[in-house]
């Protein structure tokens, strides 16, 4: 039973330094935070069914719920999601390594994540936070009477977990590749995690500093952000978005890696434009640091600054476009099959495209003035983060589930869940674009009656979405007991991770892998045969 059966004690899990087991520890923890965040979202959508407040006792409870929803989802699910679970599990396997470069640091990262999570949970039970996940000053420093410090401290701590994991990935990718695994032979999954790790290492410290400044102002009344004490409230927004815009790429780049693996495996064709795909990842990582001001077009930032941020935001859309173009071109002349992971991947491409293109409305200054801080923005980033990251995460989970557990899940239920999530997602969030353009501001507990129809539609869609998300939770669990034995490579996919048993042994590989060709050499195996077959039939 590979690494899973190496030892069954609780201690063997809690003190493990095996990257695969740590990946599973993360999988369980982020699922818990996803469910908590989802519970908060359910309450929010229930409240918004009617224009008046009725579900929550007071606006304060509503405000606390959207804050905790945002904090859990962003910092405890979306950011760690793909890297800490799939990245942890797969990076050493994909490059033919025994483990990450620093296995004990890896375990420590998980403990740091859990401590950060406990602080934030404490903030929740001790009364909650009502600042929104964006913690804008001076509201968060001088006006909110809630547990700002505890929540912010939780985020501060979990940031170090990200930084350490990223460092671990960077060192591993630099130093532990199997013989012959050159940079241009790396799977795009690895490139994506490399680019993400760079952003994490460069950006997260800025978030840490910002949180310290918030805490200092709040505790000691030192004027940093509050003009009443001589501070500058916009300074916070610059610092916050300097991290948090790149952070949206921290959430999405690993997903690009996942989708590239799935699309090639189910089109049975080498990725189209490999070097441009890798280059686009790095370009996004760099340009992503230069566009933070597009969150501040109406903040009173200077007009000329706004222009520069606007034009750079259009430019950062170009490498994102390259990704979608090349996935599409990969399907061309492929041999496409529609297994569950592929259904999720196709769903990702659709939702990410809509999310990215509506980003143009926000990057264009004149239209952003109107839709900024309305439901249009809410819809946009849910398309990217939930439509994008969560679809990719689920796609990746289904793709590598046989590798992780050694078992196959029910293909029927898998396909049904992919379809339900896709439909439920659009029903939930598409109406929010319309709602935003007709003017409904975000973070509203009560709203004018003319917005009710679209809100009811959105809430109804959310119930479909919730069902879609619960399904995998159930059938994946069931597959552990009754699933068919998967064997080392159920998808006949290329990549070193498929060359070892499922689940892999604790040491990953029994022999040293020597790499002699680039990734995704699918056509080498069967295309020639197929083509010959077709031609022979033509001759006959």
């Amino acid at each position, binding site marked *: 039973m590979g690494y899973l059966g190496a030892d069954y004690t609780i201690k063997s899990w809690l003190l493990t330094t095996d990257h695969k087991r740590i990946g599973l520890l993360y999988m369980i923890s982020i699922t818990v935070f996803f469910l908590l965040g989802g519970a908060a979202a359910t309450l929010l959508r229930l409240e918004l069914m009617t224009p008046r407040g009725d579900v929550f006792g007071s606006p304060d409870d509503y405000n606390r719920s959207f804050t905790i929803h945002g904090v859990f989802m962003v910092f405890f699910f979306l950011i760690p999601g793909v890297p800490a679970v799939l990245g942890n599990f797969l990076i050493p396997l994909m490059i033919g390594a025994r483990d990450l470069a620093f296995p004990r640091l890896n375990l420590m990262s998980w403990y740091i994540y859990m401590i950060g999570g406990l602080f934030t949970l404490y903030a929740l039970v001790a009364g909650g936070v009502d600042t929104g996940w964006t913690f804008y000053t001076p*509201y968060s420093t001088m006006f909110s009477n809630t547990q700002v410090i505890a929540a912010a401290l939780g985020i501060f701590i979990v940031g170090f977990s990200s930084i350490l994991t990223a460092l671990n990935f960077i060192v591993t990718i630099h130093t532990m590749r199997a013989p012959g695994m050159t940079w241009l032979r790396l799977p795009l999954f690895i490139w994506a995690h490399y680019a993400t790790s760079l952003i994490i290492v460069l950006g997260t410290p800025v978030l840490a500093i910002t949180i310290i400044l918030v805490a200092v102002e709040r505790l000691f009344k030192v004027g940093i952000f509050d003009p*009443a004490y001589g501070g500058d409230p916009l300074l916070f927004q610059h610092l916050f978005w300097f991290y948090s815009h790149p952070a949206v790429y921290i959430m999405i780049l690993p997903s690009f890696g996942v989708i590239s693996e799935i699309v090639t495996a189910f089109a049975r064709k080498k990725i189209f434009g490999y070097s441009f795909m890798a280059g686009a990842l790095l370009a996004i990582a760099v340009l992503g640091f230069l566009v933070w001001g597009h969150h501040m077009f*109406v903040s009173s930032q200077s007009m000329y600054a706004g222009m520069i941020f606007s034009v750079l935001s259009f430019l950062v859309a170009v490498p994102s476009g390259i990704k*979608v*173009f090349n996935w599409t071109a990969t399907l061309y002349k492929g041999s496409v099959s*529609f297994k569950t992971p592929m259904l999720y991947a196709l769903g990702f491409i659709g939702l990410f495209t*809509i999310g990215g293109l509506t980003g143009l409305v926000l990057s264009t200054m004149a239209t952003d003035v109107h839709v900024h801080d309305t439901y249009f923005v809410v819809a946009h980033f849910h398309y990217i983060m939930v439509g994008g990251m969560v679809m990719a995460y689920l796609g990746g989970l289904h793709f590598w589930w046989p590798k992780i557990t050694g078992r196959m899940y029910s293909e029927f239920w898998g396909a049904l869940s992919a379809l339900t999530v896709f439909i439920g997602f659009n029903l939930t969030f598409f109406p929010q674009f319309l709602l935003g353009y007709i003017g409904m501001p975000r973070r509203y507990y*009560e709203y004018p009656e*003319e917005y009710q129809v679209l809100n009811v539609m959105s809430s109804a869609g959310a119930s479909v979405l919730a069902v879609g998300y619960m399904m995998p939770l159930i059938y994946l669990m069931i597959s552990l007991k009754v699933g068919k034995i998967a064997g080392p490579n159920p998808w006949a996919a290329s990549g070193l991770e498929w060359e070892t048993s499922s689940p892999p042994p604790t040491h990953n590989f029994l022999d040293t892998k020597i790499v002699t060709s680039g990734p995704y050499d699918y056509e080498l195996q069967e295309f020639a045969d197929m083509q010959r077959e077709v031609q022979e039939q033509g001759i006959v």
Partner: protein
Amino acid sequence: MWEFPLFPDSASTFAPKVDALYIGLMIVSAAFTFAFCFFVLFFAVKYRRGSKADRSNIRDSSPLAEAIYITVPTLIGIGLFMWGAIIYFELVSPPGDSIEIYVTGKQWMWKAQHPEGSSEINELHIPAGKPVRLIMTSEDVIHSYYIPDFRAKQDVLPGRYTSMWFHPTKVGRFRLFCTEYCGTEHSRMGGWVTVMEPAAYEAWLEGSSETTGLAAEGEALFRQYHCSGCHGANSTVKAPPLEGVFGGPVPLLNDPKDPQSGSKIIVADERYVRDSILRPMEEVVAGYEPLMPSFAGQIPEDDLLKLVSYIKSIGRGRQTRTLTDRGMSEGEGAASNITDFMGGTSANGGTN
């Protein structure tokens, strides 16, 4: 209740322009979305496993294709950017003859003060067919003044003035929202903007003014806070007289602490007047000693507005553009332009 408008009411000169741009963006987005969906589904079905479609000459890269992927979106992007920038430029450039109204946001209400003296809460009465400029500040946290039917929005910050303008074209009542989350009653911090025929507006102003006007009240405050003691005509302290200052160029010392440091020219606008009252040491008029005490914490926002309004009334007529907070004032020194670039911090930089 069961109808679905795709657009809010179109009630200002911005609305048709912003909507046209939005439609343009939607056409581009829809074209790309449908193209992607079409090709993804078409290829996926045509080249499904087992189909007999021709698969000869497979290529896994094409520099030409990549060049097209890069240049076409870049060019479309630059075009859309410019279209948006032109309209945005208009959105932040109020015409010189705007009616100017002061707005103060606080948890959780909007107070508007008309120059003629009337003030109102969570309401704004304005005439149709005339540009209106709002000069806004907050007493506590950041708020944002948003009128969807005008397609106009601007954050309102504590400690500085921001401004927005619009040109209402339609008589009616339009919703006003706060769109920057500001605490418990955020979703209730709003009201109505009432656009009236100009004659009705005049009548409304007459009927609702209890006072002689903001500037006149400001004049009284000017004495009450003892500003006149130094700036008055027969004072013994050497302070600059304020007649004709507003709207004109002011020479400032490069280094406020050093009278020999040379000077730079700025244009006196609302921001300058406000900062001169609250942080007089930061911008010292060339030729004067830095003697003025700071009034920070002593003058409430309402009174500040009245003082600014008074100093404006004795300034040099109407100035054309005063959006220093957008980094737009023409005569600004290079140094302050750099700080403006990073978010107008010059209005607020440093401590006192």
